[in-house]
């Protein structure tokens, strides 16, 4: 008997399944007196959506879920993404009906529990970062960056310096969101080179620092997994030149509980709670990217912030917490108050760990990264030979040179060994970069299995390069044709009879 061909799951969308007349949920029609609908010109005459029974719909999405890999499936050492284990308890806590059912415009009296929690989270983030002015409003890291850069813009405007200070300095190792956020805030971007030791090139910084500089954006620790050498001197130089220092806190996991950004001379920073504070990443969100600042910048924070009424009295005691708009706020960045469900999980994480737990997190995150560095340093090139913090960056340049096997191939081959690949080709300044962030939640044995896999792949690259170049072999799908996907975009379902190209309506 020949093996049956497994279904090509991707070939049939929900739209291509089911049959007219089926439905996955019973909806009752209105049975009271019917009022007339608006005129037909305001109504739609057709709607094309799938018609599936409930079992069909469930099996389809379960089949899709089985073609996905999450942290619960195995190691996910995606550099710069801090893919640590997400505690199950915190999902349940965020789903408590009191939190989940709260309407965003509910009277403050009805949401004191949520407001208290958010206020306490603001306080905790202020303590952890040393930047006590906190707004939880930004929806994700990039929106936190934009908020922070708008605050800097507004502060410069208040000083009467915005017209001349239009340049933002960004290291060439930075996340792409940094220059993109600076540009969205209306600044031009000057890229700073990285020194041979993996920090900002000091001479280049000093050359660029003048009266046209609005800010330096700096990631701490940086995306090379390295501590930014003499950062307190760097921030002092920027301040002397009249600029602000923006801190990208994406990598806080390395130093949480050990150093405060505020002490280092950072003026404004954002922190990705979905990374350091372990909220599930959902296949690309939701996240939360609070912005934290020096106390004197508090009036500029994005709205709203949660405030506590200190005065006594029966009534004020009852409504101790309320939402407020800072006096010179850059405005709202979301319609409502932030990613509350994510913030609840992050607060649960902080409460479950406390200060000793947070210090254990950063200790073990750094320990795990350095352990991998020691296990792999003979088999892969290290572009910067310094002890690392939360992540280690290797280069696959040796494998490329000796066997014409690319980092891309090594990543795909790791899938066959059961691991999610690391981040590849980032930071942009490292040739054939393999950016590995194990996080503290990987057990030692898993790190060793992961290192063994990478060592085996290095050997395969020498002995059977075709095997590596054609990987993955054990994934739900082989390599996909990304070039055709970009050249001939096929971006949505269309009915079988439809013309493949959409018909453009004349305005």
């Amino acid at each position, binding site marked *: 008997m020949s093996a049956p061909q497994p279904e090509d799951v991707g070939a049939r969308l929900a739209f291509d399944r089911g049959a007219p007349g089926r439905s996955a949920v019973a909806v009752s029609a209105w049975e009271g007196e019917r009022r007339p609908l608006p005129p037909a010109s305001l109504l739609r005459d057709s709607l094309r959506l799938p018609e599936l029974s409930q079992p069909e719909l469930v099996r389809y999405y379960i089949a899709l879920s089985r073609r996905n890999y999450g942290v619960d499936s195995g190691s996910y050492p995606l550099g710069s993404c801090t893919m640590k284990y997400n505690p199950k308890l915190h999902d349940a806590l965020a789903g408590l009906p009191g939190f989940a059912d709260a309407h965003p415009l509910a009277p403050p009296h009805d949401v004191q529990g949520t407001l208290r929690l958010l206020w306490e989270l603001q306080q905790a983030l202020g303590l952890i970062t040393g930047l006590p002015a906190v707004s939880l409003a930004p929806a994700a890291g990039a929106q936190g960056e934009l908020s922070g850069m708008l605050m800097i813009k507004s502060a410069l405007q208040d000083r009467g310096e915005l017209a001349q200070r239009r340049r933002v300095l960004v290291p060439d190792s930075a996340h792409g969101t940094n220059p993109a956020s600076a540009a969205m805030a209306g600044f031009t971007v000057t890229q700073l080179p990285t020194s041979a030791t993996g920090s900002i090139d000091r001479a280049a910084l000093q050359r660029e620092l003048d009266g046209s500089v609005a800010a330096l954006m700096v990631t701490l620790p940086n995306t090379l997994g390295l501590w930014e050498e003499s950062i307190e001197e760097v921030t002092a130089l920027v301040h002397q030149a009249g600029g602000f220092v923006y801190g990208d806190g994406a990598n806080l996991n390395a130093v949480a509980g050990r150093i405060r950004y505020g002490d280092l001379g950072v003026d404004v920073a954002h922190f990705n709670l979905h990374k350091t504070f372990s909220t599930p990443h959902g296949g690309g969100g*939701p996240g939360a990217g609070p912005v934290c600042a020096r106390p004197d910048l508090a009036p500029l924070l994005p709205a709203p912030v949660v405030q506590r009424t200190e005065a006594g009295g029966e009534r004020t005691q009852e409504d101790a917490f309320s939402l407020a708009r800072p006096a010179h706020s850059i405005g709202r960045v979301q319609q409502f108050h932030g990613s509350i469900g994510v913030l609840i999980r992050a607060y649960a994480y902080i409460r479950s760990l406390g200060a000793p737990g947070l210090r254990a997190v950063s200790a073990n995150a750094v320990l795990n990264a350095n352990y991998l560095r020691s296990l792999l340093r003979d088999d892969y090139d290290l572009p910067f030979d310094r002890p690392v913090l939360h992540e280690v960056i290797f280069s696959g340049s040796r494998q490329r040179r000796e066997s014409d096997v690319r980092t891309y191939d090594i990543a795909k081959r790791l899938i066959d060994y059961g691991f999610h690949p690391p981040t590849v080709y980032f930071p942009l300044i490292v040739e054939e970069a393999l950016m590995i962030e194990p996080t503290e939640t990987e057990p030692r044995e898993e790190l060793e299995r992961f290192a063994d896999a990478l060592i085996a792949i290095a050997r395969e690259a020498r002995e059977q390069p075709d095997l590596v170049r054609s990987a993955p072999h054990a994934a739900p799908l082989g390599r996909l044709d990304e070039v055709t996907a970009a050249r001939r975009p096929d971006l949505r379902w269309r009915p079988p009879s439809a013309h493949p190209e959409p018909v453009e309506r004349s305005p």
Partner: protein
Amino acid sequence: MESASTDAPTPYIANTAADRAAMLARIGVRDLEDLFAELPARFRDPPLPLDPPLAEADLQQHFRRLAAENADLAQRPSFLGAGAYRRALPAVTAALASRSEFVTAYTPYQPEISQGTLQSAFEFQSVVCELTGMDVSNTGLYDVASASAEATLLAARVTERHRVTKRHRVAVLEPFHPHTLDVVRSYAYGADLAIDAVPSADDLGTDHACLLIQQPDFLGTIHDVEPLAAAAHAAGALLVVVADPFALGLLRAPGDAGADVVTGEGRDLAGPPSFGGPSLGLFAAKEAHLRQMPGRIVGRTKELHGPTRTDGSTADPRTGYVLTLQAREQFIRRERATSNFSTGQSLLALAFTVTVQALGPHGLRRQADRCYQTAHDAAARIAALPGYAVVDRGPWFQEFLLRGPLPAPQLLQRLADAGIVGGLDVSDRPEPEAAGAILTCVTESTPPDHVDRLIAALSSLEQASLEKTP
């Protein structure tokens, strides 16, 4: 094997003291703290006066207490809408969107092991295009407000490209959600765009990049989109429609009426309101604007090579999905990207898709119709009460302006005394119809006894105010 004591520092960290010692020996470092030697000594290990750690059961109790400080909404009738609407969600939505393979995955950078996220994102794009009548959709942005702000930035880029003079203004047609307008202003501050809140499309000028409208508008009324599109296009501007996707189960798709970009809020069809977040911004556009879109986009493609069959022959390449058109994005284009967008709202997009697909075309339409009928029935009953009026602003969907015998703040306070959240005070809005009014929302999932309680409370308020009148 039982050890003397728990040695791992938290339940989420495996390394024990023995593990750490062995690892440090391999690394060649004596003490764990030595790994942090590069951090400036004078700032290292500051005091961190956080509350002490709570074990699982204690944390659970603490959070239950906090949640209980919020009002019990099952007992409190609420007629708040204004951007967040209680929807009856099918049980399959939470069941499928809580699968841990979806929940604990990152952005799908490795398509071979991320087809679940990618294919469901393609379903999402398809659903959004069908609902809005647009050609292309991204995988979602943060929320309706930031999506609308991004739409104005797109409009500024697009109109700048085609014309000699830069269009540096955006016209927003009132009544428009004030919070969304606030976010549009925040982004406009960054982009050096000016915002004009206008009462009519007649106010469009040659320096407007787009006209931004809300459907239904902030006070509940359904626009006829087509003449607004014509007015925008006649002025050389784009039309951006902020549409409620649930209402689109009933209403004409904005794309069919000439919209160039459609945004919307998907949270209510994805999960609970959760005090307004996390949310889900919908963003769809005409094909012409595809390469100016913000956010992630998923495309359908094939394997480069078909799989090998058991007999050694090669089968046809299978279908798969990938992130595509990434040359627009920040991690490639950096400061020249169309947006700084990175982490978004994928899990909510999945939940939104499951809800809409579970309802299907008939279920969604029936649910939207039920919402319309429930709201209109309640409004008719209230309008029949002496002393109350429902303001006629033309066809509306689920929200209406209500005037009573008391000024709006007092009316809301008296209802609050009766344990009812009667709506939102909009009496200070610029529109004359809103004078003295509250914005009241009734949907298909408003319990009938809550409507009865509202009507009884309004009725007794009227009696009381009559008795007080000398």
